[in-house]
C-alpha cells in the first residue's frame, strides 16, 4: 500500500512504509486553483508516483 498524504512526516511516524507527498490537506490529490487540465496533470503525476512506489522494495517508512 502507498499512502498519499499532505503530511508525510505524520504518515511515516505512524508507520506507513510507502509515502507520497500530496498537495494540501484539503486537496491531497490535486489543486483546484489550477486549470482543470493542469489539475489533472498534477493528479496524474501523484498517482503515477504512488503506483511506482508500490513496485519498489523498502525496509521501513520511505518517502517517494
Amino acid at each position, binding site marked *: 500500500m502507498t499512502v498519499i498524504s499532505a503530511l508525510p512526516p505524520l504518515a511515516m511516524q505512524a508507520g506507513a512504509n510507502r509515502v507520497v507527498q500530496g498537495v494540501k490537506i484539503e486537496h491531497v490529490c490535486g489543486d483546484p486553483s489550477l486549470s482543470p487540465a493542469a489539475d489533472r496533470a498534477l493528479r496524474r503525476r501523484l498517482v503515477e508516483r504512488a503506483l511506482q512506489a508500490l*513496485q519498489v522494495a523498502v525496509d521501513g517508512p520511505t518517502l517517494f
Partner: protein
Amino acid sequence: MIRIGHYLNQFFAGIGGEEHANHPPEVRPGPIGPGRAIQALLKGDGQVVSTLVCGDNFFNEQGETARGAVRAWLRDTRPDLILAGPAFAAGRYGAACAEVCRLADEAGVPAVTGLHPENPGLLSYKRAYVVPTGNSAAGMAPALAAMLALARRRVGGTPPGPAEAEGYFPRGIRRPGLRQAVGADRAAAMLVAKLRGQPFRTEIPVESYDAVPPAPPVAAMDRARLGIVTTGGVVPKGNPDHIRRCSETRWQHYALAGLDALSPDAFECVHGGFFNLPACENPNLVLPLDILRTLEREGAFAKLLDSYCATCGNDQRLADCQRNGAEIARWLREQQANAALLVAT
C-alpha cells in the same frame, strides 16, 4: 477478616512448567506458593481461603470452560477480594489474570493483579486494577506488597485515588478533580521545563504506533488488481451510512463500477477536520478516480476494484484506526487486491 481468593497458574501452584500448561481449572483450599507469602503479609486481618489454579494454555485456549470455572469459584467461595498472580511478564498468565479480574468485577468482587508494563494482559482488560511489577518472579515480594496495599484500599476505607498518585496502571478513567494550578499555568511550566531540558510529565500521553513490516514490492503491476482507500470522508451524496465528520469508529465500502470519475452530484466529502468545500466540488481531489480510470485504460495496472473503502480519519481513536485498518486489509484481500493506495487527508 478479609476472605481472599487467589488465582495462580500451573507454574506458581507448583504443578509444573510448560508440560503442564494444559492443566484444567482446579480449586484448592487455602493458600499455595505466593499465596503463603500473601498470608504472611496479612497479619491476621485476612485469610487466603481458596486458590484457583489453571494451566496457562488451558485458560487461553479453552476460554469458555475456564471462565465458567472462575465464575463457579467466585460463586462457591464468595470472597471479599480476588488477588490474581502476579504474572510479571508472562503473557498468557497475564491475560488470564486480567480476565479473572474482569470476571470478579462482573461478580461485584474487588480484584487486583500485578503485571510488568509490557505484559499484553494489560491491554486485555483496561479497567483492571493492576500494580506494576518486575519482569520475573525475583520481584515477587514487592509485587505482593503493592498488590495487597492497593487491595486493602479497594475492600474498605477510602477508595484508591488517581493511578499516578497510588502507583497502579492508569485505567483509562477520568474523574473531575482539582489541581494546584490552572491548565494554562501547568502547560507553561511544562514548556519551560522542556526548553530547559528538565524532566516533565505530559497530562495527555500520545499513544504509540505499531511497526508494520513493509509489503514486498508488486512484481507485475500490469496484472495487479488495485484497491483505493481514503480516510478523507468521501461518501455517496447524502451520506447514507451517516459517516461522522469526526470521531468515527467505522468504515464503509462504496461502489465505483461503471464510474469514470467522482461527480459532485453523486459524491461528497463529510470530513469535519478541514475545509472540505473543494473536495465536495471535486471529490477526485481526494479520491482520484478520474486519473485511476485513465491509467487503468492505459494498462498501468490491470483493474481497479469495483468498490472503494472510506472512513473519516478526523479524531479517530487509535484503537479504532487499528481495527479499521485490519478490517480494510482483510476486505482488500477478499477482493483479491494485489496493491492499494490510501489517500490520507
